[in-house]
């Protein structure tokens, strides 16, 4: 009997003993958000999701940490509301734009930080014209800084608004690798995408790509069309 009691008392002590401390760290309550502005169009840079671009945060005092990666959104904005309030080095990277410098930011409860980036290419003068069973896209390709060779243009059509290189139902694609860059930049383009259903709403986007290491596309904005 005594043994039994002792065992009960001992196990009770063990149970309470092991739960005496609670996690007293504060949850991360910092928030960083912002946008990447395209230096050619002066609007947000258009990308895709996932993997359009990422924003890397290097936390002060976190020499042993891997950088925090914030995936960018397709409209060129980004946000992370679950980091500690601290000083960070912020670097937008891995997108269809030339490298930019890191910026030192003191992140508080709601801190905005915007970047201006130089895209590899921009799609300009876009007009999208729907007609029976098809859509016509007229546009030009522009750039302000010479980078890799221009290799490809595509007009992408999808029934969902997140249209991009991998999300599309119809497309027209043209290989530009054999054409000199100056000719490519001088020419106006007209792509026709056919096979569209009447009375349906479609989302249209133009994508152009240079031969950059990560094979990133530069996109136009998403245009909504209704096929008559």
């Amino acid at each position, binding site marked *: 009997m005594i043994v039994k009691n002792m065992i009960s008392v001992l196990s009770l002590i063990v149970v309470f003993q092991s739960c005496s401390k609670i996690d007293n760290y504060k949850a991360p309550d910092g928030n960083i958000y912002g946008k990447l502005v395209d230096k050619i169009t002066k609007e947000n840079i258009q990308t895709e999701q996932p993997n359009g671009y990422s924003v890397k945060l290097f936390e002060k005092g976190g020499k042993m940490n*891997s950088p925090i*990666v914030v995936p960018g959104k397709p409209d060129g904005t980004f946000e992370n509301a679950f980091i500690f309030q601290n000083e960070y080095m912020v670097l937008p990277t891995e997108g269809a734009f030339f490298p930019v410098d890191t910026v030192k930011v003191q992140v508080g409860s709601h801190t905005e930080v915007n970047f201006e980036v130089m895209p590899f290419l921009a799609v300009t003068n876009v007009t999208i014209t729907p007609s029976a069973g098809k859509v016509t896209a007229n546009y030009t390709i522009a750039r302000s800084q010479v980078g890799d060779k221009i290799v490809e243009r595509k007009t992408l059509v999808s029934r969902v608004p997140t249209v991009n290189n991998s999300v599309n139902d119809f497309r027209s694609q043209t290989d530009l690798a054999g054409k000199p860059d100056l000719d490519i930049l001088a020419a106006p383009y007209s792509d026709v995408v056919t096979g569209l259903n009447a009375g349906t709403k479609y989302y249209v986007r133009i994508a152009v790509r240079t031969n950059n290491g990560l*094979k990133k596309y530069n996109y136009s904005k998403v245009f909504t069309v209704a096929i008559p």
Partner: protein
Amino acid sequence: MKVKIYFLLAALWISCFIACKKDRLDILPIDNFTADQVFSSEALLTAYMASLYNALPMEDLNTYGNGALANNTDEAITAFQDQQNNIGDGTWTQYWGYNNIRNVNEFIAKLPAAKANENLIKTLSGEAKFIRAFHYFAMVKRYGGVPIITKVQQYDGNNIGELQAARNTEKEVYDFIATDLDEAAAALPETNAKGRVTKNAALALKSRAMLYAASSAKYGSVLLNGILGIPATEAGKYWKASFDAASAIINSGGHSLYQKNPSKEANFQQLFLDKGKDNPEVIFAKYYLFPDKTHSYDTRYLPFAIRGPSGYSSRMCPTLDLVEQYEYIDGSPGKLKIGTPSNPIFYTNPTDLFLNKDPRLLASVIVPFAAFKGSIIDIQAGIYDRGIKISAGDYGAFYNTTTHKLDNIGGTLPVVGKNGFGGTEKTQTGFLVRKYLDPALPQAQAYSGGSSQPWIEIRYAEVLLNYAEAAIELQNVPEAKAKINMIRSRAGIVLLQDADINIERVRKERLVELAFESHRWWDYRRWRVSDKLFNNTWPTALKPYYDVDKQAYRFESTNAGRYARTFNVRVYYERINPAELAKDPKLVQNPNY
């Protein structure tokens, strides 16, 4: 009662003291050998190699569903049941093999002092170098540059900083692999025990690795200061290295293409099932022995109607795209002659659709209504009656040709085949894999872990194809042509002329010859064409229908499975497991992860 308890306690108390002899816990295990024992016996040294070989990261016959690399390319898709909504996202084929590399490093460090004759030590050191190179190659083809560790690391409680290594460049890793394999080739004999590597195996792995390095230089880009990619100027050097390694094997005369069966089709099937040591095409293989070391290839990939007791089947359904990549015997493009939907071509004997196709097709793929293991593998998508298409979801449905209705009681004509279409575990594409399936395996033994046919990791045909690819990249058309024609002659299709030879043709020969052998995923990747080929792309199927009026079969091509597939550009380099980054802050993650 109380007395008894006190007695017991006292006994316990006393036993505590007498049991505590000082070296009581220092006994040697009686079911294991210690390092000292292993390194002082030739027999144990040789036996120990088995565990090092066993750890080699091969993409062998023990794969399943989307784990089978062929199911992530245009070769095949898995059955409906296991189909995933995409192909790998860069985390599916991880291999971070530093635990295995540590074992090899330790072996290499201790081997020179072993009590064994010089020849054995030399051979074993060659085998160990080969194994180490194999591990590094498995990593560099996935991640690009990785840390090169050649010494056994020891943690003394205080030196964590020294042990954390940064990534070497991709070029350094490939050069390291080349050096290890050169040393292995110099140390290894021409022949070795079954399943052990030889000089030619080391050279063959080198020709493969150098081909990958050259492709990375020519088709990839240099990123992260060279941790990924190789400068384009280095490409020529690596093509040459691959070419030289392959020609050393060819000149040695130690291997030849398998030609034991005069029937071209049966020969190509037999090549993968010949377990003998005298299979002249095998350069390096992994052998199995039932029931001690086995795999589950048959149970996973057999057709549904002749599936094994474990119940799986059809986990690799070749696509119509693949079937059409096989040319006709006369060298014409492999497009199947099915006519158009409004004007189909009818075949009384459905297998006549594949008449005069490359014999390798029927040896690698089970086509609709082909014979396999004594059965006709009926794959039928439905029937046509009076011009109307009738379909059903399962083979239990019958059609009554008198009343022209679906009729499970009075009907006599099955609507769909027992092996497809319909159901979640039947073919989704109209085809099933045949390569490596063992026709001699009793159906009752085709359960999980019931198969024991060997996996050929490196065969002579691959060496010839490596040679041809390196040759064509070096603008050496005659050499490329000669080796491609050796492959085609063995296969039984028309030989190529100089004018036919170009990079596309050489690649295509490689793709069809090595289909389902876990090459294509890496080949598309190293040529950097995966993102073009898989850009919202549907796999394709061939659907056979029985036409009641014509009493003949007609075929339709269509999309297969449930999902279109996209290869994400970032997957050209895989994600390093974040847990590894957390352990070693000097590691840099690959882009976009």
